[in-house]
């Protein structure tokens, strides 16, 4: 990690800088024992310190953008549903949220009104996500390999990847790559689900079109360690408009 020895430190940190560093350490999970305990307590009691910690979380989260999304196996989702007792209800049975009418639900306005407003806003935003823009064409690519078929569908800014036939090889993962053109560097879209399907938002900067190629490479478990394909290309196909 650090080959060079740390440079000699200059002047000690000022009290304000000490507090800032402590907030960063708490956000990073670098504190232990009594120090961690004291910092957590301070976070609850000292709103200014709590705001510093949150600002660090906000700044640092930018680093997670460097990580290539990795699709989780279907078993993770099933495990969550089982733990929460959600079961495999058909969508029609899922309780719908009703907008309610005016103040009938809980007095006039107040937090209930705010809540219902928030729900209505949520419903509108979701409708925007779920309805692909009419003007945006959809695309599909079918990637056939020995004993397996993977289909990728692009609707608006979403891509759905499904294992249509067959099963991934035991002990290996398949990684899906987006290649924007003949000279373009492949961009990882994460791992192909071992069974079932997975939908994710297209990373920013990727524009669907008929010059885009999708490819699947054979990778160790967890996907390419380098961020570029390391194993054999098992299949590739251009996007075609649906």
């Amino acid at each position, binding site marked *: 990690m650090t080959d060079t*020895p740390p440079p000699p430190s200059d002047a000690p940190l000022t009290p304000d800088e000490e507090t800032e560093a402590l907030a960063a350490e708490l956000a990073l999970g670098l504190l232990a024992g009594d120090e961690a305990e004291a*910092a957590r307590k301070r*976070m609850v009691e000292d709103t200014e310190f709590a705001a510093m910690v*949150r600002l660090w*979380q*906000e700044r640092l989260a930018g*680093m997670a953008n460097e990580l290539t999304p990795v699709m*989780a196996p279907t078993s993770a989702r099933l495990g969550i549903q089982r733990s929460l007792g959600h079961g495999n209800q058909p969508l029609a049975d*899922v309780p719908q949220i009703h907008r309610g009418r005016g103040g009938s639900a809980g007095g006039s306005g107040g937090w209930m009104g705010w809540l219902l407003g928030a729900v209505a806003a949520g419903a509108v935003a979701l409708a*925007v996500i779920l309805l692909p823009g009419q003007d945006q064409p959809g695309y599909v690519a079918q990637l056939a390999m020995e004993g397996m078929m993977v289909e990728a569908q692009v609707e608006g800014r979403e891509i759905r990847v499904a294992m249509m036939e067959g099963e991934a090889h035991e002990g290996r993962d398949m990684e899906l790559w987006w290649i924007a053109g003949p000279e373009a560097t492949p961009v990882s879209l994460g791992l192909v689900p071992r069974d079932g399907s997975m939908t994710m938002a297209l990373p920013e900067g990727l524009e669907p079109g008929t010059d885009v190629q999708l490819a699947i490479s054979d990778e160790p478990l967890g996907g390419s360690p380098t961020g570029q394909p390391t194993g054999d290309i098992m299949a590739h196909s251009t996007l075609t408009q649906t």
Partner: protein
Amino acid sequence: MLERRRAEIEALIARVALGDRQAFDALYEATSAKLHAVCLSILKERPLAEEVLQEVYIRIWNNAGRYAANGLSPMTWLITIARNRAIDRLRAENGQPPAAPAEAAEAVASATPGPEEQVIRKEQRRMLDNCLDEMGEAQALALRAVYLEGASYAELAQSAGAPINTVRSWLRRGLVQLKDCVSQ
């Protein structure tokens, strides 16, 4: 993050807070690949990362109601939960006590950030890459190892071949510099 995506995820979390399972499914589809990557980056082992990812979404379901009050942007809140759970798990696997700020960081109420504060935060996120570059290579590498791989001071000290206290004051100084740089 695009403003629209931010608003979509925020709206989904608000609906999850009301027990809306459909919104929870949609939130899972939109964010699980990223959160899985966070868990995997820290834990380096798929079955473990999958287990922690499940804990993360169970927590999101149970705690979504606290989100609106904590003032974090939606992806930061989700990433922070994933990272904290993964780090606690990493420490537990190594027989160390938990180090993440736990509940506190996810739940302490704050005033909702006003538009100005939101602009400042966005700006700081944008500056982060530049500032990490300016920070000095070794410090930036150490910070990445801490944030993305859950390295502890003891591990940093070992790989640098220096005493823990030396490494600690060196990194603390780097963090203060980073803060000054992003807030310019």
